Every structure is written in C-alpha cells, then in structure tokens.
C-alpha cells in the first residue's frame, strides 16, 4: 500500500513541476502585458528567496547580504549593458557577485551567529556608500540609465534563472555535498571532526547562492531602466528574502517558494492599493506570521494534511 503511494508521489511531483513550467512558458502568449510583469516580479523574489535559502537554511547563518549581491548584479548590468549582449552581462553579473561572496565569505564565515548577520547588514551599506562616493567623485553623476528590453525577454530570462537555481538546489540537496552542509548546520564542530572542510564548504555555497542573486539583479536592472546606489543597494532586498522564506516555512523545500510567491503577490497588491500604509501592513503580517505561524505556510499546510488524513483514518 505504502510503496505504491511513494511511487505515485515520485511521479506526481516532477509531473506537476513540468506542467507549471509549461504554463509559465506559455503565459506571455495568453496574458501579455501587466500579468507578465507581475509574474516575473514574483519569480524574481522567488529567485532571491530560494538562493538565500540555498545557503542559510542548511547552515543556519542569517545572511543579510542579498541586497549586496543583487546590487552588484544591477551595477554590472548598468556598466556592461551598453556594450555586451544580455547573456554575457548576466553571466558576468553572476560571476561578479560570486567573487564578492568568495571574498566576504573567506573573511567572515568563521564568525558565528549574530555577528554574521551584523556583518552582512553592514556590507550592503558599505558598498552603497562606496559606490555613491565613487560615482560622485569620479563619474560626477549619481545614477545611470539602462537600455530597456521588451517585457517578454525579461520574463524568459528571469524564468531561466529560476529553473537553473531550482535544479542547482535539487542537485545540491541530494548530493553528499548537501549532506555535509546539513551537518554543518546541525553541529559545526562535529562536522569538522568527521573530516568536512567546514569553512571551504560554507564559502563555496555562499558564492553559489550569490551567483543567482547577481544574475537576478542584472535582469532586474533592465526593468528598472534608471538606477542609483540607493535603488540598487536597497536594504529591503536583504530583508525580503529572509522574511519570505520564514513566511513560507523552511521545513519543506516548497515552503520558501510558496512564501515568496504569496508574499510578493501580496506586496504588489498592497503597494498599488495602499501605497501609504503598505510597510505598516507588511510589518503587521510579518509579526502575525512570526508569532502564530512558527513553521510558516508550509507548516500550516502540513497540519491541515495531517488533520485530513487523520479524519480519513477515523472513518475507515
């Protein structure tokens, strides 16, 4: 009985994912215009959230660096976008972010706990002020313009980055490398004693997660068309992935995706309908989620499923 159920699940989930992917690919043909923009905004937040989860969920490090990597991607796009094709720009943006992550990670991933959160929080401000100082002193301008690209291109590129990210996450999770990461999160000391090169592993994972944030930033920059250091290195881009992941629940792989999708959709609606109160409303939703949904939306669904199953068993 149980074996067939497991087999069914094995086929069901990839099939479901494939259908969702096909639907997403077909979307611009059916519903062009605003829907496409809305969906790639949501996909962009899913990318940020999932790449944050890639590093922070298994290792337990609270990273507030996403805005830094995202901003590096944005600036790469602004500097190279005029001369190079889009695919090159996105790859370079990913690499640039990864280099920053390698540097920062090698310096700081020995730090434990809250120090790391402090450090990464400050990193965003450091880069923002440095870029602002550089632009004002050397280029004499505050912001930069980008050449706009049509929405469908942005949409497909964003979607491609998401697919690459999800595949990477999946492969890491099922490899021994993912297992080693998990063990670091549970007990770093013990992991080191079993022969895992703890710091190296953390730094590499940090860099991999930065690749996707940088790539997402590069494509997002084109949507923005005008950027300055305050837009590119907005600290909210660090808070949002963390909050979306928690909102969705990190116990399940689908939790952060669900959290990012629901939360970013909610955010779009709140911004357009209640632009004066939207931060207030977001704050309240978060407080409620932190207090009453400790396992996030995924935890809620899990409880419901358990209840439903329990009911069926009681009937038979």
């Amino acid at each position: 009985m149980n074996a067939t159920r497991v087999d069914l699940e094995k086929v069901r989930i990839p099939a479901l994912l494939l259908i969702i992917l096909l639907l997403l690919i077909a979307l611009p043909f059916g519903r062009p215009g605003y829907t496409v923009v809305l969906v790639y905004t949501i996909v962009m937040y899913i990318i940020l959230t999932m790449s944050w989860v890639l590093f922070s969920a298994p290792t337990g490090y609270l990273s507030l660096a996403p805005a830094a990597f995202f901003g590096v991607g944005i600036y790469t796009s602004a500097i190279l976008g005029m001369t190079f094709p889009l695919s090159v720009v996105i790859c370079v943006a990913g690499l640039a972010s990864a280099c920053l992550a390698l540097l920062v990670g090698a310096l700081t991933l020995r730090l434990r706990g809250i120090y790391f959160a402090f450090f990464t929080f400050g990193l965003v401000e450091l880069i923002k002020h440095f870029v602002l100082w550089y632009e004002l002193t050397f280029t004499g301008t505050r912001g930069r313009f980008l050449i706009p690209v049509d929405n469908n291109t942005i949409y497909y590129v964003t979607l491609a980055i998401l697919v690459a990210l999800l595949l990477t996450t999946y492969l890491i999770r099922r490899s021994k490398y993912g297992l080693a990461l998990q063990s670091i999160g549970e007990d770093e000391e013990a992991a080191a004693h079993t022969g895992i090169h703890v710091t190296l592993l953390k730094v590499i994972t940090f860099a991999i997660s930065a690749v996707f944030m940088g790539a997402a930033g590069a494509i997002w920059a084109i949507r923005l068309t005008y950027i300055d250091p305050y837009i590119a290195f907005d600290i909210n881009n660090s808070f949002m992935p963390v909050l979306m992941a928690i909102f969705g629940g990190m116990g399940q792989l689908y939790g952060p995706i669900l959290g990012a999708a629901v939360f970013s959709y909610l955010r779009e609606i709140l911004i357009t309908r209640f632009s004066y109160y939207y931060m207030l409303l977001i704050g309240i939703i978060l407080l409620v989620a932190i207090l009453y949904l400790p396992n996030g939306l995924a935890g809620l669904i899990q409880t419901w499923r358990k209840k439903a199953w329990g009911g069926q068993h009681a009937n038979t």
Partner: protein
Amino acid sequence: MITFLNVVIAGLLLGGLYALIAMGLSMQYGVARVANFSHGEFIMLGGLTTWTLYTAFGVNPLVSLAVCGPLTFILGYIIHRTLFKRLFVSSASPDIFESNSVLASFALLFIIQNIASIAWGPEIRGYSYLRVPVNLAGAVFGANRLVTLGFAVVIGLAFYLFVTRTRMGKAIRAAAQDPATAGLMGVNIDLVLALCFGFGAALAGIAGMLISLCYPVHVIMGQEYTIIALIVVVLGGLGSIPGSFIGGFVLGIIGSVVTHIDPGLSLVAYYLIFVLLLLVRPTGIMGR
C-alpha cells in the same frame, strides 16, 4: 595643531552621541538578547518628537528630554512585554529566539517607520537652537554640540552607576549572565528584561533628541544610526556598557578624522574598522 585639536574635539562631540546610542543597543542585546534592528527608529522618534514640540509648542528641546525619554521607554517596555516576551516563551532555544527576534525587529522597523511617515511626512526637519559659537582652545564649536556632549556624558555615567551600584542594576547584570538562573534566584525576569528593552529604547529616544539639536532629522534617518550602534556595540564588546561608552568615543574620533579627509568616506571607514575588528578581536575592547 589647531586642526588636530579641532578634529579630536569634533570626534568627542560625535562620540558622545554614538556612545549613548550604543549603550541603548547594548542593553537590548546584552541583556534582553534582542538584536534590535529597529533601534534607529526609536532615535528617529525622539528626534521628530523634539522637533514637533519645539516648532509647534515652543518647548525647549532640552526640556523635551522629559518627554522623549519616558515616551520611548514606555513604548519599548510595552513592545517587549507583548512581543518579545511571547517570542521568548515560544522559542525552543536561545539561538532560535535570537533569529526570531531579529525578524520581529525588521517588522517593527517597517511599522514604526510607516507610522512616522504618516505622522511627519518625508520632509527633512531642522530647527535652530543654541547655535552660538563657542571658542574652545582656539577651535570654534556650536554651543548646541557642546550641550549634546555634556548630556551624553552625564546620562551615560548615570546609567552606568545605575547598572553597577543599585539593586535593580544587580538584577540586570544577573539577567545578562544567565536569565534562567537569575530567575531561580528570585529576579523577576520578565520585568527586568522588559525594563532593559525599555531603557535601551529610552536611550535611543534621548539620543534622537540630542541629534535633532545638531543635525536635521527625517523619517528614514534611523538605519544609519542602527548600523553605527551595531558597530560600536561590537567594538566595545557585546553586552558591555562601559565598552559601548568607550567604543562610541573611539568611533567618533575615527569618524571625525576621516570626515576631515573626505566626508563621503566616513561610513566606509566605520565599516572597514568593523570588518578588521571582527577578524582580529570579535570580542571587542571590553569583551570577555
């Protein structure tokens, strides 16, 4: 020589503010274990309240100390009692509480900032009070900035004496070391933690009032001060009140020197110090 003196005194003036802000965060993080990323918002509240009282009702900014301090204290106390207390109870381990409280403080940041922007709007506010030049050993400073330093030092010392010399201070120090054991020894732990969070908020509110004397204030000013507070607290040693006090002045002088060279780089310099410190001596100046 005059420029050197100028820079150092300017650094001390700045350092007094930093010390006060950092002591507040040190109370909240060192004792109540809340790494409060919304610390700067309480500073903003203090500054804007002072501005409103002065421009609308003509209340002397130094008198509004008696409003800003208690107001932010009550706010902090209530927030701890309602929000962080609940999180403290529901979190399985201190580590989980720490990350949960960071998230809750983001939410607070959003809420406070949004309410303030509804109340005060996005304009940059400033007023002129005690802007008279004072000659100090050849260097000229505004009287308002000297008053700021005086207040910061007096409040900082009073607070230090409170923590080291009184019965309540002893309870606070016990709670900082081990909340569970302190509770077993008869310390009313809920009260002490909420008081500490409240004191932290009050110090931020008072710092905000002092900041409004010297600099323009606005709704999104908080974040910059939050970062400075975090840096100073790490510089002084997490949870050490004298450490935060000294660290504030150290950072103030460094900031003043760098500002003298290139004003655009002062935050960059703070941050580089922060990085070096975390790498070389993460326990800070006075850390255990």
